[in-house]
């Protein structure tokens, strides 16, 4: 080996080293984002951060800083695996910087210190946060601090297959008037059962398809408890209204008894359910505003408004018509440097701007988070977003942010399922739920 090649390679090495030094002087920040319950239409829950990062980098460049943000996106399709992964990752100090999840996680995660208040990093009086609907901001709060910035809003309507409604005697005018009748409490859950039965008796739908509910546990089922007069929380204390819960359990047992809902409905394959409601195999069902996107985009229901009517969840005995909004929120997790968390917070703020959030709202058929979002062309020009916002959102409740709510929910659902499948009577299910709530939650729950 002569001197020349050595010199050559030394020079090359020096140049390479120098170039990496230049890159290193720019700030490289990796921000990881996870989201739960995100299907193919929900990609902007995480993709919004690509846009936000681009804007933030440009803003930094104008200030004369070189900021390079790398966004790592991990959307999860379901909830169980997502919550397991997130909780365990956070306990192992490997949580992502930003997480989009249901607002009910704020309670337990804040108490155990997995998340930090977002208001420590974002001025709530600044735009666009100041413009977000106040009730949504309230849903993102826990123990007097705002932990989550609402990522979307939605509500959960009752759907009716119009051709079958006509076949059992409703005129077009009747069907158009249905939302108002439901809102006034003139059309109730009892009518739902009766109409479902009529559809089956006429042979329009198969047995068990008259009323075709959600196939697994979900916030939806609290709506029926509300319909029957139940309250979830009062002044920071959970409430278990025995009579209302019994009426709820009994209603589903009655649906099964009348043959309009299947006894083994819970746990059926989700894909099959979608296909069936999109093709008119079911008469009446309930779902969420975002179902519109999947029905129209993936399931091929081209004429949605011609075939489907939607209303609030009708009232039952002792309650009123209602719907539930279950906003997802962006949360900041603990265990990162203050600088990283500040950048993550800045990104959330940009991602919450009307035009960017509207991409998610319209693509996934969720509802907007701020009044100005409804004025973005994309949003304003969308019939579904407009009608659903007007008809449903003013009547929307939300589940409480309470560290013990998950326990309550688990017990409530376990007994719901047992009475639905006939493993327990509604009476026994309510009593079992009461006993277990007393022994696990004690003073934290009011039982009446």
């Amino acid at each position: 080996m002569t001197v020349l090649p050595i010199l050559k390679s030394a020079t090359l090495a020096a140049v390479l080293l120098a170039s990496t030094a230049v890159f290193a002087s720019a700030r490289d920040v990796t921000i990881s984002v996870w989201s739960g319950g995100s299907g193919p239409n929900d990609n902007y829950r995480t993709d919004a951060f690509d846009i936000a990062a681009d804007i933030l980098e440009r803003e930094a460049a104008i200030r004369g800083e070189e900021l390079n943000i790398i966004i790592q996106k991990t959307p999860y399709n379901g909830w169980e695996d997502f919550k397991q992964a997130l909780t365990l990752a956070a306990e192992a100090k490997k949580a992502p910087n930003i997480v989009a999840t249901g607002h009910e996680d704020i309670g337990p995660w804040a108490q155990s210190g997995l998340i930090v208040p977002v208001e420590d990093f974002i001025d709530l009086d600044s735009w666009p946060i100041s413009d977000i609907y106040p009730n949504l901001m309230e849903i993102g709060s826990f123990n007097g601090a705002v932990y989550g910035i609402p990522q979307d809003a939605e509500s959960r309507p009752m759907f009716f297959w119009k051709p079958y409604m006509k076949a059992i005697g409703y005129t077009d005018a009747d069907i158009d008037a249905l939302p108002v009748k439901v809102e006034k409490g003139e059309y109730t859950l009892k009518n739902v059962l009766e109409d479902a039965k009529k559809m089956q008796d006429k042979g329009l739908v198969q047995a068990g398809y008259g009323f075709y509910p959600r196939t697994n546990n979900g916030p939806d089922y609290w709506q029926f408890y509300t319909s029957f007069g139940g309250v979830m929380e009062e002044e920071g204390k959970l409430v278990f209204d025995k009579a209302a819960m019994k009426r709820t359990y009994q209603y589903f047992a009655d649906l099964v008894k009348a043959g309009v809902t299947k006894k083994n409905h819970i746990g059926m394959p989700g894909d099959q359910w979608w296909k069936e409601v999109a093709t008119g195999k079911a008469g009446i069902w309930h779902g969420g505003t975002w179902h519109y996107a999947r029905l129209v985009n993936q399931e091929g229901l081209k004429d949605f408004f011609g075939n489907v009517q939607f209303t609030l969840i009708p009232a039952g005995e002792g309650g009123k018509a209602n719907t539930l909004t279950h906003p997802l929120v962006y949360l900041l997790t603990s265990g990162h440097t203050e600088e990283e968390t500040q950048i993550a917070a800045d990104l959330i703020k940009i991602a919450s701007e009307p035009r960017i959030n509207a991409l998610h709202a319209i693509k996934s058929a969720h509802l907007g988070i701020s009044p100005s979002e409804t004025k973005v062309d994309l949003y304003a020009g969308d019939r579904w977003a407009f009608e659903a916002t007007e008809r449903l959102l003013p009547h929307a409740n939300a589940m409480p942010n309470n560290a013990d709510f998950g326990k309550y929910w688990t017990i409530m659902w376990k007994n719901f399922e047992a009475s639905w499948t006939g493993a327990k009577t509604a009476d026994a299910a309510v009593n079992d739920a009461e006993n277990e709530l007393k022994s696990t939650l004690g003073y934290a729950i009011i039982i009446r």
Partner: protein
Amino acid sequence: MIAPAAIMIFLFFLMPVGLTAIFAMTSMSTATGISGGVWQVTQGAVNRLEGDMPALAEGIAQPRFVVDEEGLAALEALKLKPGYVIELRAEHVGEVFPSRREAERVIKALKDRPSTREVKQISDLFNRSVLNTRFESREALVRSLEKLGFKLTPEERDKVATATYTGWVWTTDNFRMIGNSPDMAQIFLNTAFYVAVTLLLFNVSYALFLAVTTHYMPPTTASVFRAIWLLPRITPVVIYVLMWKWLTWDNGFLSLLMGQFGVPPKNYLLDNSYNAWFFVILINGFIGASMGMLVFSSAIKAIPETQFHASEVDGASRWQQIRYIILPQLRWPILFVTCYQTLSLLASFQEIHLSTRGGPGKATEVWSLAAFHTALNNYTGNLEYGLGAAMALVLVVVGLVLSLIYLRVFRYDTLISKPLIED
């Protein structure tokens, strides 16, 4: 040479069981976290204190922010922009705010425009209440309460600490809960049914049947049959269960077949709890049978062939050969398979998790699956590590007890005693 075995036993048996036992004695969950908690006066804590200490509960229930000299001095010490202190002292001294938000609006409006982080730092200095503050130690909370004028006796301090602590505590409630809950009893019965039926029908009886029948086949045919019965075992479990789902779904093979006879399609797997159990036991039994089959076949091979020849000379029928030659010499393998498969059935839940997920309702929820759902995987994200660990510990105890019973029933001592003939 005892050390390697001891290390293995410690690492892979004693340590997991020990950790499970420790977890089982705690109230650990998502909400308490694993690594410990803080002391925080939340609305929930105030509710808990109302009964015993109403005066204290009322006194600490409201947030209160005061711009006072003490706070200003602390702010000076922070060495942020001097303009903050000057302006606050000149314009806002003595002002009282009933919420953090209102205090921060004033701080935010200072002419030097503090950043959001600074606003939080400054407002903390003027916080004259304990509501919603996270204290890293119990003493810090007590000191703050004393500063606010609440003199507490040691017992009262204990009460306050208990009511405000956010982390996990040592408890035996998990076991009490398991003992008292009717749902747990149901899951226990489910498990007993599942293990007993799968074990008896498939893992032992059917495996024995396969081993004996293939024993009487020509060797090549026997190998083919055994290879076929190994398929469920060697197919990846996700694919294996998916094939069962294809068979039983509403649009699956069974529905298509029955459709030919005018039966409306239905989900055979989840139609009712009998169906679900039927398929859960088949799914597990077909996997389990292959292991017994292999063990029994090789054990039969080990029987000296002369015994069969001699019995045939004596005119023994096939049944008599099985009854008097094969079965007596299979006591060891049968004990082993029964014992091993009981433990593996008790602990295995992946096939049920993938097929019925414990449904319909909670009909096919078995103990190990319920422990998994409780501790690690449920829709609400309420992971109860403590309760789940207690459930797992129950399983360990049940496994040990059953093993001891088996040893007694199969008279293990006579199996390991030296044969008299060789003495």
